[in-house]
């Protein structure tokens, strides 16, 4: 029977200092402040900015984003179906900037001079000692199949939250009795593995009440996350609503006829939510952080430093995960990467060695609007395989969906936003 005594815990703590100076003792005032520039103020970038300042307030942190406000993709599925207000997933960057003394600059990032160590933006060149790039994803249009940049204005994917979310929401709100919907899920690897199946489940719940039908076209061989739990929904409570078709390859699509032609047949519907395949955010390509012909930015699994440029780190969904980790592309993983990089930069500025990451992922999904599921894992860098892997078997999903988990979906979302953006 294991129990930790108070004495065991207390004896390891000597008297604490009263000076408010961050993790490390204050530097001499003569030394110029170290500069960290962070391009992209989503989950990864915002967490990195905040935690850098918490660790060492003397570091000058500049956070750049093309928008004043981040719209969270996480929880946007709840917004689509009316279970959360759109305003509750909009977070102004100003809050974090003001609270922690981060300089926020609204600007377009257009280039990088890795030799002079400057980020080139519409607000001027920004010199850095360290640069963190957290661009998120971009959609990978399949022009051959007929899904180009214009299509997302008519058939919103809503896989980057914001205007797309509102467009898709109004289409969902307009669904009538007996409506048909088609959801095409993206081919792995993509942002948020359970996301398309959560959206499908909530769509099925809505259509069940309308006497409608949902076809889920999946290019993957199976449901890519929390499989038995989503499958239980599709084949159980939603069995009269959902037709799930795996291994479906899109060959072409007809905008006028609203038809998607696949190797499993041609499909039409009143509402088509086509979620395209994905790649690293545009900024990663423009800054030269993606190899020729690649889709994602290669990084070190020990530090997330770019393998292309020194002193440049890439975090979040944009990294080339496959060679270095089984961690999914998720908000919590981006948050954890932000903390890891912040910590190591603060250490390096003080002449200390960086430490390999011990982090994790927790991700809640809804199967009905009240019942939830999750996946949770702890990860660490393993030098034997030079990858970030599950730590000590800490990885799993629940046996079934529950109302208790459904409650925790909301608490988790609120706390995750607070840890990252506030």
């Amino acid at each position: 029977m294991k129990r930790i005594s108070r004495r065991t815990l207390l004896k390891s703590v000597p008297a604490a200092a009263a000076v408010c100076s961050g993790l490390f003792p204050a530097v001499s005032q003569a030394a110029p402040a170290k500069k960290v520039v962070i391009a992209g103020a989503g989950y990864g970038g915002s967490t990195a900015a905040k935690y850098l300042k918490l660790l060492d307030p003397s570091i000058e942190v500049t956070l750049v984003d093309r928008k004043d406000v981040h719209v969270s993709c996480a929880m946007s599925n709840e917004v689509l179906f009316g279970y959360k207000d759109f305003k509750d997933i909009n977070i102004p960057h100003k809050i974090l900037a003001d609270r922690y003394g981060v300089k926020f600059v609204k600007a377009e990032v257009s280039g990088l001079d890795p030799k002079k160590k400057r980020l080139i933006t519409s607000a001027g060149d920004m010199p850095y000692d360290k640069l963190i790039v957290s661009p998120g994803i971009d959609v990978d249009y399949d022009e051959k199949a007929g899904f180009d940049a214009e299509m997302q204005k008519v058939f919103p994917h809503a896989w980057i939250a914001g205007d797309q979310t509102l467009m898709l929401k109004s289409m969902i709100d307009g669904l009538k009795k007996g409506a048909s919907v088609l959801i095409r899920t993206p081919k792995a690897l993509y942002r948020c593995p359970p996301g398309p199946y959560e959206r499908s489940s909530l769509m099925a719940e809505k259509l069940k009440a309308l006497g409608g039908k949902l076809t889920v076209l999946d290019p993957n061989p199976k449901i890519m996350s929390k499989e038995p739990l989503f499958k239980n929904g599709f084949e159980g409570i939603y069995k009269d609503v959902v037709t799930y078709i795996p291994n479906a390859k899109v060959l072409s699509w007809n905008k006028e006829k609203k038809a998607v032609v696949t190797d499993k047949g041609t499909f039409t519907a009143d509402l088509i939510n086509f979620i395209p395949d994905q790649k690293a955010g545009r900024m990663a390509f423009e800054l030269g952080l993606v190899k020729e012909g690649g889709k994602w930015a290669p990084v070190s699994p020990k530090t997330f430093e770019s393998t292309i440029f020194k002193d440049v780190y890439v975090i979040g969904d944009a990294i080339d995960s496959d060679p270095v980790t089984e961690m999914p592309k998720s908000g919590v993983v981006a948050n954890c990467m932000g903390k890891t990089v912040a910590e190591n930069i603060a250490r390096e500025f003080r002449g200390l060695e960086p430490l390999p990451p011990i982090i994790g992922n927790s991700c809640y999904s809804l199967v009905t609007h009240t019942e939830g599921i999750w996946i949770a894992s702890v990860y660490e860098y393993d030098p034997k395989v030079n990858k970030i892997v599950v730590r000590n078997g800490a990885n799993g999903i629940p046996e079934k969906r529950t109302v208790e988990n459904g409650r925790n979906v909301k608490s988790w979302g609120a706390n995750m936003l607070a840890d990252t953006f506030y």
Partner: protein
Amino acid sequence: MKIFSVFLAAALSAACAWAAEAAGGDDLESGRRLGNFCSSCHGPQGSGPGQTIPYIGGQSAEYLANTMIEMRDKRRAATLMQKISQGYSDGDIEKIALYYSKQPWRSNNNKIDAKLAKQGKALSESCEGCHGEAGLSDGYTPRIGGFPAEYIYYALLEYKNGLRNMEEGGASMGLVSDMDEKEFKALAEYYSSLK
């Protein structure tokens, strides 16, 4: 957004709390690093606006460590914490617990139903023996004063249903086994009002 203003004010004091770690030794710094992941669910410095995820910031280190071990060893009901706790050794857990125990306690920012809280106070006499008048911790017993009422309510149900390490820590909570949900709602409101 109003809920966040509490955390706005406390974040600055939290920055000072970080400084204490600098002189706090390796265990505290290890605890901070190992516990980096925790705040993404439990909230910054271990507390957040979520109503059903327990505050760990400012909680008793002894209680935090014992609880995590109980969940890891399946002696206490846990949802995803049962999986997450597998990732940490006893030594890791002690350090993480130490780190979070040093963070500022931030009580809930909810409006309290005064009438319901009064009913809860009337029921709380037998709770005081372990939880004290203010719901603070004595080390082994956790702080409960200031938790969100919803969290306390579901915790009480778990104790009543024998889901929380009934051999040891839960055993003394046997006194709630004859209470009902209405009484739990009142007790939860009362203890959540002890901010």
